[in-house]
């Protein structure tokens, strides 16, 4: 399976999206992304944690210590309302970028106006 490299800036958006479904710990976020993308993206799992902490610092997510399913102490993350707004912004930005890139890449012939 060939992994795709991650575009810069998209990790934050993916984390926010993962947390939009509910509270997750870091490993949970990693697993969710893995499952949704069917492991197509090459995410260095280690980079997930600084990203989580940065998002927490910005107030987009909250962190809570809790107990995991197997009764271990784990740090759970939750989207804040500020984070939800941010997610919406990221999604629409991504869609615009994707649409634009799509147009460019699928164009058949250059249409340059004569002067």
């Amino acid at each position, binding site marked *: 399976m060939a992994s795709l490299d991650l575009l810069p800036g998209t990790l934050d958006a993916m984390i926010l999206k993962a947390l939009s479904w509910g*509270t997750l*710990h*870091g*490993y949970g976020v*990693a697993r969710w992304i893995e499952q949704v993308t069917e492991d197509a993206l090459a995410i*260095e*799992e*280690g*980079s997930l*944690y*600084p990203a989580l*902490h*940065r998002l*927490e*610092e910005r107030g987009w997510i*909250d*962190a*809570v*210590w*809790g*107990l*995991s*399913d197997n009764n*271990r*102490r*784990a*740090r*759970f993350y939750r989207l804040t309302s500020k984070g939800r707004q941010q997610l919406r912004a990221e999604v629409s930005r991504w869609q615009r970028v994707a649409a634009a890139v799509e147009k460019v890449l699928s164009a058949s012939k250059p249409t340059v106006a004569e002067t």
Partner: protein
Amino acid sequence: MKHTPEPLWRRYLRFWGPRVSEDINEELQFHLDMRQRELEDRGVSSQRAKEEVMARFGSLASARNACLAVGQRRERDERRGERLSGLKHDIAYAVRGLARSPGFAAVVILVLALGVGVNLTIFGFVDAIVLHPLPGIRHPERIVTLTSGSLSYPAYRDFKERSRTVEVGAFRQRSLSIQHGSEPGLATIATVTGNYFRLLGSSAAKGRTLLPEDDRPESARAMVVAYSYWRHALGEDPGLLGKVIQVNGVPFTVVGIGAAGFRGLDVTEQPDAWISMAAWPDVAPSGFAGLTLETRSWSWMTMFGVLKPGVTLPQAEQELKQIGEEMKQSYPGETSRNFIIGLSPASVASLPGSSRGDIVRFFGVLLAVVGAVFLLACANVANLLLARTAHRRREIEVRLTLGASRTRIARQFLTESLVLASISGLVAVGLMMLAVYLLRGFTLPGGMTIEAMNIRPNIRMIAIVFTATFLTGVFLGAVQAAHAVGATSMTTLRESGAAAGRTRSPLQAGLLAAQIALSLVLLVGAGLFTRSLQRALELDPGFRTSNLLSAKVDVGLARYTESRAEQFYAEAIERINRLPGVTSASWSSANLLTGEENINTLVVPGYVPAEDEAMEVEYNVVSRDFLPTMGIPLIRGNNFPAKGTLATRREVVISEAMSKRYWPGRDAVGQTVIASGDTNTVIGIARDARYHTLTDEPIPYMYLPLEGRAIGLGSSTISLVIHTSGDPDNLVGDVRRELHSVGPQVPVFDIGTVNLTLNQLLFPQRTGVSLLGAFGFLALVVATMGVYGVVGFVVARRVREVGIRMALGEASSSVVWRMVKDNLGPILGGMIVGLGLAVLLGRTIASFLYGVSPADPVTYLATIGILLLSSVIAALVPARRASRVSPMMALRSE
């Protein structure tokens, strides 16, 4: 997944600090363990799984460090936030505490605000006149003026051409006749060199300023009108530019309006308009006939300059002195012997020379006085706060016991005092603005009103308020904290209040003594000024001071000839004498008690002067009725005859002192005096009067008849004095109209009752009395309150002791005396210190006092008496109250 409720994470956050790194390790480890387990569950071997986990995770160290960086940053922010919220908490606590005793808070705030407010007000004055006197000038620090006085135009030109260090300009301000309506008025016109506006860096509010091109004899006559004159005298005429305004009858075209606030280099006199130096010969009053710009012996201009870049004041001074020396040698006869060159920063030199010393000294004294008031306020408030702290000992002890740290409690006191001080600072700014408003009509020595100083809070004043309130707050907080936290031992909780803090602390005694000392100084000052004013008012000037109207005219500004002037004088007197309500009227070349003087050389045949005796005499050129108008009686001989003849020009009336000096034991009437070469016969002797100041010793003085002496050189200003039967103010309009109808071009100015002048003359006394009187009274009240407060505090702590003593049969009077006596120490100590200070400071105000020595025993004794009496009463009141409490009540009071 179990989920812990919200409050828990807050608690974790609180402990975030020391655990940042552990938390990160735990979180990352959890991830690695979960992944490992997942892989193992799928059947991967433990060893393979471990490798796979690490491969997926990437660098553990870099992930950790990145998280740590974020964590540490958050921790720092967190702490800062905590500190801030701690401060907020302290402030809220302080405000609540003060709100619980609003009366106490109000007194403290008011006393402090008064202390800061009076300082701020006086600082505002000093700031406006001494420290920042050159509004509207771009680089005041680069501008210097020549301190030697005035210079001639050719001398100015020489300096301008030769100096390499200073760019030189010159100006002269003079009252000239100005006419833009039907009647001429008087205005201060500055005659300036072409580079004046450029050197001062001032631009025009409208139109343009004067340029070097305007300063040529052939140029059109251009004028820049001052902003204030445009606003107040010209009704903000929007179409002023291009209009014609006449100066001494010569038309000038207005080319611009000066920048708002710009007043040139003379702080005390705002010019109303600027014209070019080259226009001077056109407008020169008739008295200047024969003097041209080229007359080197005629020194009349003030020279100033801008230091060139990189040049220091001493360098420039050295160069200009050198040039001055060369000029003295080139033109020995024509250069004044007072030709001494010295430079000084324009901001200092711009105060008028004559009043500079007075103004500076006046404000020096005022600053010292308000400084003392400020210290007094601080000492008083500190004592009030200490008394309150004593009542709060229990509260403090409880908080200490409950685990509050001593620093924390000290910080609380500091916050409380700073809150008090800050509120006081705000109130003080309000008080200052109120004071400036109330004092707006006040005239300072030098003739400047407070309104004209345009005092507004500026950055320096805000800095003063901030510093004063901050220092006060810190001082008060520290005093309280030291007292409460340091002195309070754990004993308080155990002991009863009666034993704790039985007596006042040395700190309280010291503060009390300081209050007494400061108020003694202020009261002595107030007393000295009061006595001095009393003396001054008792002085007999030797002439009438009521029902007198005075006005000035200047026929020279109307460019009258001598015969036309003589006709004007005679006709005006005749018409004014006919006005109902006028008893008599006269012309006089020198108004008495105004500092105006004329001096002639004198030869008295038969009198041999001592070796160093200056044969000079002061004189006054007057018309016939001067002596009766002023109420100066003739002792011998006659007044001038009714009709002036050639003979009357050679007749003089002299003062008693002159007669005694030159003809001792003989009759001076009929004798001869030669004044300025003219031989005169003495026809009468008038009683001595005070000619310059109320404290003058009688001096030789001579009255010369006006006929034939119409215009003197330089100044042709002459005063009209009128004795009226009713209120002189009612005649102002009539007199003005009569003068205008006799000489439509002659400007009439300074019209008003003579009493005003006397009031101004007594300015230092009156100001001293009103200011120091007010401050002295304030000080007395504050100090009395201080004594009352401290004694009341001590007595309240000793109610039990009083009860025991009285139960044991001690007389209540003896108990009261004991209480009062215990407090006499600091009161007497304060008085001794205060006396020493007062004697030292008294010398500095000696020059403001009339007929009273700064060590006036009456003042000192009265002050000591008042202060002692009021402090003993202040101590008696609470002591007596305590002695009236029944012994049983006192014993049970704890």
